[in-house]
């Protein structure tokens, strides 16, 4: 008896949600699905907001689903989007390496796929939009070399091992250090979630083992912010250069205020708009390049404030 009451209540909740859903439906005839890896990460959330804003301008309905970092959830969600008869899919893969299964499913249904940030190696999307992370990390490494006069001991706070961003940022940064023999990586440790508290703990342990560290590279801004905090707490007798990657809002603010020394700002707003444009072009049967790699911009206290006002 009580169960019936429960179910009525949940039915009402669902009906309420349904109304919210249909409110967004009275739009043009194009519907584009946006499958996001994890909306808790500011980087993905910025891309989502950019796609949704651009969609609203052009009267295109954007259906957003969030996998919360779980690849299996994402496969289910994309299955639902396909059932929903979307015209194109913008796919930001969840999980360490991108899964090809959703691309296959969309292709079988004749739906074009724009892969963003990560591209399934076995079944790539019709086009792939991402930052050229290797080149960006190399530029950052060169800047570090220049700033320190070519000497220093680096502690690296890594992201989630095995992910494309982690691998690419490692490759680029090491390539820069190859030309800078005075700088040595003395410690590196992986985080699991790219989170600030992990960065703090990892950097603190590194400083305990080796107080002579003069440079920290956080593979994401949040990790670098944690490392900067650890440096502050440690009361060292020398300066430590702390650099991050991503250029999310917290990171840019920290660079502006001098908490971080530099970061590489990714063009999240631009990538979101470009993803939507590519999706429309693919729907119209136009040719879109297989890869559209975007540069990232070296950001220091000089240009951080501008990016905060108007994110690229």
């Amino acid at each position: 008896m009580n169960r019936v009451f429960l179910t009525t209540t949940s039915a009402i909740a669902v009906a309420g949600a349904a109304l919210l859903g249909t409110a967004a439906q009275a739009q043009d005839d194009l519907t584009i699905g946006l499958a996001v890896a994890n909306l808790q990460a500011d980087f993905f959330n910025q891309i989502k907001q950019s796609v949704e804003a651009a969609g609203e301008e052009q009267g295109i309905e954007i259906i957003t689903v969030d996998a919360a970092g779980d690849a299996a959830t994402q496969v289910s969600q994309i299955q639902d989007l396909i059932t929903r008869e979307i015209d194109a899919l913008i796919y930001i893969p969840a999980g360490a390496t991108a899964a090809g299964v959703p691309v296959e499913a969309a292709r079988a249904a004749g739906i074009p796929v724009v892969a963003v940030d990560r591209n399934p190696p076995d079944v790539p999307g019709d086009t792939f939009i991402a930052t050229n992370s290797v080149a960006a990390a190399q530029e950052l490494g060169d800047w570090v070399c220049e700033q320190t006069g070519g000497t220093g001991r680096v502690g690296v706070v890594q992201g989630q091992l095995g992910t494309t961003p982690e691998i690419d940022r490692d490759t680029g940064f090491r390539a820069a250090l190859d030309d800078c023999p005075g700088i040595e990586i003395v410690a590196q440790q992986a985080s699991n979630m790219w989170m600030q508290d992990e960065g703090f703990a990892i950097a603190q342990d590194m400083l305990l083992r080796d107080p002579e560290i003069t440079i920290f590279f956080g593979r994401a801004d949040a990790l670098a912010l944690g490392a900067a905090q650890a440096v502050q707490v440690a009361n060292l007798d020398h300066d430590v250069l702390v650099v991050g990657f991503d250029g999310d809002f917290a990171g840019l603010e920290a660079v502006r205020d001098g908490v971080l020394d530099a970061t590489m700002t990714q063009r999240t707003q631009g990538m979101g708009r470009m993803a939507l444009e590519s999706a429309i072009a693919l729907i119209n049967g136009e040719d879109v390049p297989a890869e559209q790699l975007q540069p990232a911009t070296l950001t220091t206290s000089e240009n951080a404030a501008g990016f905060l006002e108007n994110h690229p």
Partner: protein
Amino acid sequence: MVAPSEQDQATGRLTIPSFNWGLGFFGPLVGLVLLCIVFSFTSEYFFTTRNALNILDQVTVLGILAIGMTAVIITGGIDLSVGSVLAFSMMMMGWLSREFGVPLEIAMLCAILTGAACGAVSGLLITVARLPPFIATLAMMTVARGLANILTDGRQIVGYPSWFTSFATVRHFDFLSVTVGVFIVSVILAFIYLRYRPGGRNLYAIGGSPEVARLSGIAVKKVTVGVYAMCGALSGLAGIALAARLNSSQPSAGLTYELDTIAAVVIGGASLAGGVGSIAGTVVGVLIIGVLSNGLNLLAVSPFIQMVVIGCVIALAVTFDTLGRRNR
């Protein structure tokens, strides 16, 4: 660990509080039907054969996990390690076949055995080291997640043979994929075991009162270890199904699945205090979670609102279940 039910105290005899299982299973079923009706009227895409098959696909992994969890919860325990054990088992399968050239059929068997071994360790921690199930399986959750990452240093294993991925993708007779079939067969076997076999009835007795069960001659420790081992083996099986669905093994797979699984079992009318629960109820609980997220996706409800709706439904389900129990 578990307080004896009022009936036990009153009569001093071994009782099986859940015997009126039909009643407990009817409530959630009405809820499921109502959900389906609401979605059918609000989304033109919902009430189609294709979408129904999609939902079955989508709940398979959760469903297989929930079968084992039902048995554990009936004995008054909890297993927080199912998601991690799933990841460890699927990594073990990929690692054995990739690194050592073990034939995939045997590697699949090893995945199930890996899960069973993890479960048995949890069971021994509970019965021999006398850890509370929450702590024992919390420890196993962390250890198994670590082991899953250690096997390949955190990298995932991509690219299984096509016959393997076809388990999840090819629908035989336009209807049943192998993984969904395995789920359905597991459900039937578990249903028969829990309802008609003495071994299954013993689980309810242990959940009702471990002490009374022991005095009446049930080998409580042995059965407890067996239940956790079976739950682990089913986690391994779910890991295989997930690997087929994703065409890869990922050490990060199954994160927070233990919570979804527990939610499905409890929505299905099981009591975390033990002694109450049924496979039929659990299947309905699993379907409620599956239909809810599928329907909200089809209605293009924002992901943030979805979280709120799903959370509210879980809270409501358990609230009314506990209120109902008190009145019964």
